[in-house]
């Protein structure tokens, strides 16, 4: 009977024989409806440790409850990314990377502007140096 009970209990927890990383870390029983279990597998303990250290388990739990179930995995992964970034850089976290990328975007914008201007200037100069015939290939191209 004990074995039957054990068997029934094991069948109810067939998906999670071992507690999830969150429940392991928090040292609590991992229930079947544990909100962390699908996203914090026991093989990745550091993932939850980072998230808990920066954001806290209760905050993460509230955040996950506010999003749709199919969005939770993405939410957890983004939180894990931001937590790891904040641990590596306590001052700026992932915002430091955003600053760098934004500067790069601005630089590329200027580069595109300058290169476009060169292209236009070159094509215009080339056009002026040639005859004004409509059969000129460069002129023809620009008219397209």
């Amino acid at each position, binding site marked *: 009977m004990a074995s039957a009970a054990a068997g029934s209990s094991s069948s109810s927890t067939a998906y999670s024989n071992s507690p999830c990383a969150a429940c392991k870390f928090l040292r609590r029983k991992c229930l079947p409806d544990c909100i962390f279990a699908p996203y914090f597998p026991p093989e990745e303990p550091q993932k939850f440790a980072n998230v808990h250290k920066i954001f806290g388990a209760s905050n993460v739990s509230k955040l996950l409850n506010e999003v749709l179930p199919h969005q939770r995995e993405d939410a957890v*992964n983004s939180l894990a990314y931001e937590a790891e970034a904040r641990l590596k850089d306590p001052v700026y976290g992932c915002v*430091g990377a955003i600053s760098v*990328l934004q500067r790069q975007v601005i630089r590329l914008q200027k580069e595109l502007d300058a290169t476009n201007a060169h292209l236009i200037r070159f094509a215009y100069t080339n056009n002026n140096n040639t005859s004004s015939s409509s059969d000129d290939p460069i002129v023809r191209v620009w008219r397209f």
Partner: protein
Amino acid sequence: MTLKGGTSHACAACKYQRRKCTSECQLAPYFPANKPEMFRNAHKLFGVRNIVKILEKLDGPQRQEAMHSIIWQANIRDLYPVQGCYGYICRLQYQIRQAEEELHAIHAQLNMYRQHHHHHHGLDAGTAAEDMVPSSQLELGMAPPASNNNNAALTLFGHNPAQQPYAAAGVMAQLPSPVTPDQQQQLSYPISSNPVGGYNTGYFDATKDDNNNNNNNVAAVNSFWLQHTYGMNNNNNAVTNSSSSMGALQSQLLAAQPLGGIQEEVVQDYDEMHPFFDTIDDRQSYIDSKEAYDTSSEESLKDTTQSLEQHVVAEDELKSAAACFSLTSVN
């Protein structure tokens, strides 16, 4: 007796927690009372205890920067509960990749024009040297001498590995060292305290995440998350809502598109020009002597016609001669 006009000046953090705000309140400098949503977002994401823990590890100037980044990050998470800052990073990476591809295409176009330019000016023996000078100004990223962007293209295409933003894993492995406070002041903080109004990337839609945005953003996150250690669903759909994502870059991209589209036309025309070169005097460029070319082609046609006519005439003479011969041969 209470002082109704008393200056409570409780910071937003203490107001939210309904506690007395003392002069020693660590959060008071960063959460003014007139902006309760700032603290609400920060509290929702980090929690007071975690914020204080972060601050305690830092000294004076760094605390200010850290709080700014925490507030900013929390505001972004409030706007985009699913992806947060990570989604924004992915979007920036996508924009950068698009811009670099566009830049590459434009440089290819420039090179093609330059080759075309050299080819035709090379036909003029005396002007080749002069024509080389303008082309040298068209080197990659080389703006007018006064520009400071001389190295921009080199650093762009000679990727500094520390700035490769494509792979999420790459971003994680190469998170740059914090921007110094001076640098931070020089470049505007990535966004104002109000994320929606502070930056014109087009990323920040007016509305918060909804299902549609989430689906597209999930696709964007997925495509970059593949290479991250945490893994994600394999979804190769690039961000499709380009109209909302390109922002300031889009006008440039759209402007550059026709150049890429007409590249084939130029190539075709260039190929078609080759067979005609044989009929052109080497001392004349194809373009300069377009009228001469037309004239010469007409003349060659006339020559051919004339030769045909002459051939016909000769044939007639032979026939008549043959007829005379045959008549005489009978006898």
